[in-house]
């Protein structure tokens, strides 16, 4: 099969790429990377991702890594497949670009740290650092306040339609919603409605159950 995704089901970055493949309705082979066996640090895997991280991606002879580079490639290379995840109007796409950066530069920092403390650490039998949780929740709340304002003016973060700007949030949302951090989202009506909407998309449901 031309498209291959190398990753693990528990990795937010892998899920980000999976979400995009599902939205585009593309066939691909999923190759599980055994991280407990340190498969991601083998020379073979390092030739796919020199940073030794999942996911790694192939489309024919094109090899990529970094989940948000993979999603952007898919969105542009397969514009007519499945959901349109970008906007062709340059000015509208520039605004999508702003909110893609916001997820990458602001939401993910604090969201991922909270997911690590509240969701992953218990999974690995490690102890949650309550001070880190408090600190990151406070910072995430400031970001979510801006989201609340944005989403009261715009149905989705990038504009009227669901785009990569929203999709990139899905994996971290999935993990945070299984923890007490969900209350930060519930406390903000527009954020809450948006989070519920995007997490109920059939493609996302498929991506996390397949």
């Amino acid at each position: 099969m031309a498209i291959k995704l190398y990753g693990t089901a528990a990795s937010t970055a892998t899920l980000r790429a999976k979400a995009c493949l599902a939205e585009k309705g593309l066939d691909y082979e999923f190759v599980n990377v055994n991280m407990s066996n340190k498969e991601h640090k083998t020379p073979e895997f390092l030739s796919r991702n020199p940073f030794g991280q999942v996911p790694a991606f192939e489309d024919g002879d094109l090899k990529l890594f970094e989940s948000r580079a993979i999603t952007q490639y898919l969105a542009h290379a397969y514009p007519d497949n499945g959901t349109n995840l970008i906007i062709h109007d340059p000015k509208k796409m520039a605004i999508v670009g702003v909110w893609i950066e916001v997820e990458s530069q602001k939401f993910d920092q604090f969201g991922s740290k909270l997911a690590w403390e509240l969701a992953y650490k218990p999974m690995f039998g490690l102890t949650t650092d309550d001070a880190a949780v408090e600190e990151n929740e406070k910072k995430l709340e400031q970001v979510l306040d801006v989201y609340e304002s944005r989403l009261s003016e715009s149905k989705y973060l990038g504009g009227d339609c669901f785009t990569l700007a929203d999709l990139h949030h899905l994996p971290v949302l999935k993990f945070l919603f299984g923890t007490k951090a969900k209350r930060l989202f519930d406390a903000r009506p527009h954020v809450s409605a948006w989070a519920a909407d995007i997490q109920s998309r059939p493609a996302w449901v498929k991506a996390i159950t397949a």
Partner: protein
Amino acid sequence: MALKVHGTVGSPATFRALAALHEKDLDFEFIPVNLSAKEHKSPQFLAHKNPFGQVPVFEHGDLKLFESRAITKYVAEAFADKGTSLIHKDPKKSAIQTVWTEVEAQKFDPTVAKLGWEIVLKPKFGMTTDEAVVAEFEKKLEPLLDVYEKRLTESKYLGGDSFTLADLHHLPTLQGIMGTKVKSQFDARPHVSAWASDILSRPAWVKVASMLTK
């Protein structure tokens, strides 16, 4: 239609946006934002410019953008035929450029900016450098630069054969760190060292950096 940048001299994010504008030979109005007067946290700034209260903010007619890497991307695409080409048009080459643009955003910047904060900025603000943090992040930088060294052995620039946003985005934090002891890590890797010298000496960047001495 007028181009405007609201920003601050010395702000890496502001300089990132300005670098792209100069590479494209674009005329624009630079409107200084007074960070020490907390202008960026005023209700008007938050409501009409950047709800996160940060610089830079970019305007092209009625289009308003924030986040420096969204600004550079828009400029690179909207003015594709002007000045230096900062993107690849071929979809596969573009995808590879995007990989390294992500590497800068996700890996290089968080590590190097942290070092810059501790070593350069904290003393400027009368705060004490945390040497433990410096040691920790210097240790993180080494394997990162090893990957860069390997990449730059195979490729003239990070994103491919030509200078693109994937390289440009590094300039502000790179400039800052090269004035510190961390420069030794770059000097120790010949391809990284050559690449860093090359991009830091580009006329468009020199123009931006010279704003610091004015």
